[in-house]
C-alpha cells in the first residue's frame, strides 16, 4: 500500500433498502474514479442530479494515472478543482530523451506564457479522486455518492435503465433515465452487455514502481532508450508529490508477472535505476498494453466514458486525460437532454466526437508503443538506426518516439457544420485557447453554457452571455478578430468575421450545435 493515508468513505445503507425517501436522480453513474466523479460534478453544475455507485470505499489504490495535461486541468478548473490540483501537483513541461548515457533530445510542451494552466502536472490518482470527492460534496442535493455498492445487473428500456446494486445490506434496484458506465478498463457493464473491445494488444511487459526517495531530479519527464541501468530496454522517470518517483521499466515479453513483481526482483532493478540512492518501494504494478476501444460509446441509455470505452498504452498520458475530455464533451449534452432542452440525437455527437478523439489517441499511443517495442526485425533496425543517426544529425531527434503527450483533441471537421469565418487560427471544433485577461484568464470566463466571444468587434443583440475583448491582446492573436460561438465545453461551435453575424445567424448556429428543442432561456 502506498504511504498515502487512505480514509474509507462511509457506507450508508441506501434508502431503497431502509425504506427511506428515494430521491429522483435522472443519471446513474457507475464508478467513482476520476471519470465518474468528474461527470457527477459537471452534471451538478448543470443542475442535474446523479447517483454514483462504486464497489470500493477508498480512492485509487496505487498512484495509477499521474500525468494530467493542460486541457484536463482547464476542465478541472471549470469544475472548481483545478487550482487545488495544480497547487499539490508537480508542474512540468520539459521532456528529456536519453540514449544510453547521452541526452539526445529535449522538448518543451508549453513554450509560451499567458495560460492559466501548465503543460502538465504529475499528481497521484488518489489525490485527484480525493479532491473530486471533496468537490462532489459541495452538491449534497445533486450528488449521491454510494460506496461499497457494486453493480451486478443491468436492464434498459427505451425510457431508462435499472441497475441492480449489491451492498453489505443486500441488493436493490436503482432506476435512472441514463447510465454512465465509468467502471474502468475491466468494465462489468461492458461484459454484461456483451460488448467487446476492438484493437491491438502488445506483448511487451512493463514494470511500474513508485518509490519514495529524497533526490534532486528536476521536475521533468526523463525517458531512456537502452539506459546503462537497464540494458536493451526503455525506462521512464516521473516526479510526483511527496518525494515519490514513478519508474517505468520495459521487460521482455516472456517475463513472468508474478516473479517480476516480487520485491527481491524489483528492488535490484530500481537500485540500478536510481544510482544507489536510498529508497523505499511504495507501489508496484506489472502490465501489458492494449490500444482498443468500443465500436460505439453510446448504447441506448447506457453511455461509456473513460477506460470502460477505450484503453491506450500509458506512453503519452492519453488514458486519464482522454477520459476527462469524454466527460467534458458528454456532461453538457446529457444535461440538456435530461432537462428536455435538447433532442436525444445530441448524444450521438458525443459518440462521433469522442470516437474520433479516441482514434487520435490510439494512433499516437500505438505508434509510440511500436517504437519502444519494435514488432519485427525490420522495425527494430529502423528504430536503432534512427537512434544512431540522432547522435550526430538533429533531424532525427524529433522523430524518436518516446510518447507523444496528450494534447486536446481537435474536433475540427467532426462537429456540426457551422460558419467558419473567423479568419484567425481557430476553427469550429477546436478547443478554446486560453489567454490572459485583466485580473485573470479567458478560460475562466468561458464554458458551462453557450456564450459569445467578440474580439475586436461588437456582438449583435443576443440572449447569450457575451465577452467582448479588444483587438490588441494576446486573445486576439490566438483567436483572430471576429465573433466566436463557444460551446459549454469550451470548444468553438462557429465563427464569423466582424459584422458578418446577426441574431438569426447566431441563433441558427446554437441550434445546430445543441440540437435545441426549446427557446433560449
Amino acid at each position, binding site marked *: 500500500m502506498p504511504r498515502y493515508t487512505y480514509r474509507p468513505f462511509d457506507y450508508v445503507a441506501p434508502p431503497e433498502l431502509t425504506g427511506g425517501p428515494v430521491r429522483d436522480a435522472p443519471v446513474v453513474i457507475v464508478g467513482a474514479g476520476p471519470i465518474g466523479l468528474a461527470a457527477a460534478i459537471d452534471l451538478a453544475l448543470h443542475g442535474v442530479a446523479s447517483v454514483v455507485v462504486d464497489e470500493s470505499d477508498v480512492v485509487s489504490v496505487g498512484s495509477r494515472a499521474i500525468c494530467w495535461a493542460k486541457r484536463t486541468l482547464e476542465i478541472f478548473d471549470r469544475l472548481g478543482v483545478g487550482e487545488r490540483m495544480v497547487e499539490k501537483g508537480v508542474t512540468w513541461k520539459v521532456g528529456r530523451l536519453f540514449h544510453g548515457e547521452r541526452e539526445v533530445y529535449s522538448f518543451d510542451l508549453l513554450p509560451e506564457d499567458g495560460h492559466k494552466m501548465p503543460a502538465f502536472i504529475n499528481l497521484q490518482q488518489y489525490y485527484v479522486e480525493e479532491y473530486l470527492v471533496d468537490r462532489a460534496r459541495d452538491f449534497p442535493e445533486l450528488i449521491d455518492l454510494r460506496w461499497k455498492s457494486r453493480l451486478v445487473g443491468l436492464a434498459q428500456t427505451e425510457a431508462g435503465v435499472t441497475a441492480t446494486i449489491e451492498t453489505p445490506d443486500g441488493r436493490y434496484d436503482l432506476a435512472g433515465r441514463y447510465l454512465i458506465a465509468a467502471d474502468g478498463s475491466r468494465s462489468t457493464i461492458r461484459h454484461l452487455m456483451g460488448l467487446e473491445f476492438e484493437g491491438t494488444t502488445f506483448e511487451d511487459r512493463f514494470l511500474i514502481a513508485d518509490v519514495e526517495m529524497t533526490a534532486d531530479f528536476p521536475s521533468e519527464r526523463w525517458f531512456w532508450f537502452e539506459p546503462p541501468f537497464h540494458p536493451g530496454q526503455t525506462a521512464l522517470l516521473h516526479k510526483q508529490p511527496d518525494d515519490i518517483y514513478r519508474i517505468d521499466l520495459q521487460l521482455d515479453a516472456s517475463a513472468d508477472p508474478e516473479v517480476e513483481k516480487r520485491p527481491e526482483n524489483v528492488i535490484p532493478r530500481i537500485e540500478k535505476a536510481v544510482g544507489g540512492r536510498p529508497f523505499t518501494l511504495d507501489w508496484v504494478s506489472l502490465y501489458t498494453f492494449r490500444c482498443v476501444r468500443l465500436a460505439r460509446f453510446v448504447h441506448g441509455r447506457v453511455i461509456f466514458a473513460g477506460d470502460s470505452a477505450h484503453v491506450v498504452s500509458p506512453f503519452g498520458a492519453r488514458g486519464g486525460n482522454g477520459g476527462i475530455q469524454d466527460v467534458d464533451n458528454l456532461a453538457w449534452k446529457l444535461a440538456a437532454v435530461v432537462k428536455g432542452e435538447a433532442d436525444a440525437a445530441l448524444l450521438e455527437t458525443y459518440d462521433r466526437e469522442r470516437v474520433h478523439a479516441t482514434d487520435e489517441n490510439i494512433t*499516437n499511443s500505438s*505508434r509510440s508503443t*511500436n517504437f519502444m517495442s519494435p514488432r*519485427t*526485425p*525490420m*522495425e527494430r533496425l*529502423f528504430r536503432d538506426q534512427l537512434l*544512431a*543517426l540522432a*547522435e*550526430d*544529425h*538533429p*533531424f*532525427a*531527434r*524529433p*522523430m524518436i*518516439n518516446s510518447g*507523444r503527450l496528450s494534447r486536446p483533441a481537435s474536433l475540427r471537421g467532426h462537429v456540426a457544420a457551422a460558419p467558419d469565418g473567423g479568419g484567425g487560427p481557430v476553427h469550429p471544433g477546436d478547443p478554446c485557447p486560453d489567454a490572459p485577461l485583466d485580473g485573470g484568464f479567458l478560460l475562466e470566463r468561458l464554458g458551462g453554457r453557450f456564450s459569445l466571444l467578440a474580439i475586436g468587434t461588437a456582438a449583435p443583440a443576443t440572449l447569450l452571455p457575451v465577452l467582448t475583448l479588444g483587438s490588441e491582446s494576446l486573445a486576439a492573436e490566438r483567436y483572430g478578430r471576429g465573433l466566436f460561438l463557444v460551446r459549454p465545453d469550451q470548444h468553438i461551435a462557429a465563427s464569423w468575421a466582424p459584422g458578418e453575424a446577426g441574431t438569426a445567424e447566431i441563433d441558427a448556429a446554437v441550434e445546430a450545435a445543441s440540437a435545441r428543442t426549446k427557446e433560449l432561456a
Partner: protein
Amino acid sequence: MDSATYRLGLDGDEIYAELLALHEGLSEAESAALNARLVLLLVNAVGERSRVEAAFAAARRPKG
C-alpha cells in the same frame, strides 16, 4: 547540412508509420530489396548531387 533540420513538420510520425507499414509481411530479403528501391527513388527525388553525396557520407560514417 540538410540533416541538421527536421523537415517533416507534423507529418513525421505518420511518414515513419507508413515507412514501417511498407515492410509488413515481407521477408528479410524482400525488405532489403524494398529499401534498395526506396533509396534509389529518394536519390532521384533529391536530385542534387551534392546533397545526395552528403547523405551518402553521413550514412556511411560509423556511429560514434
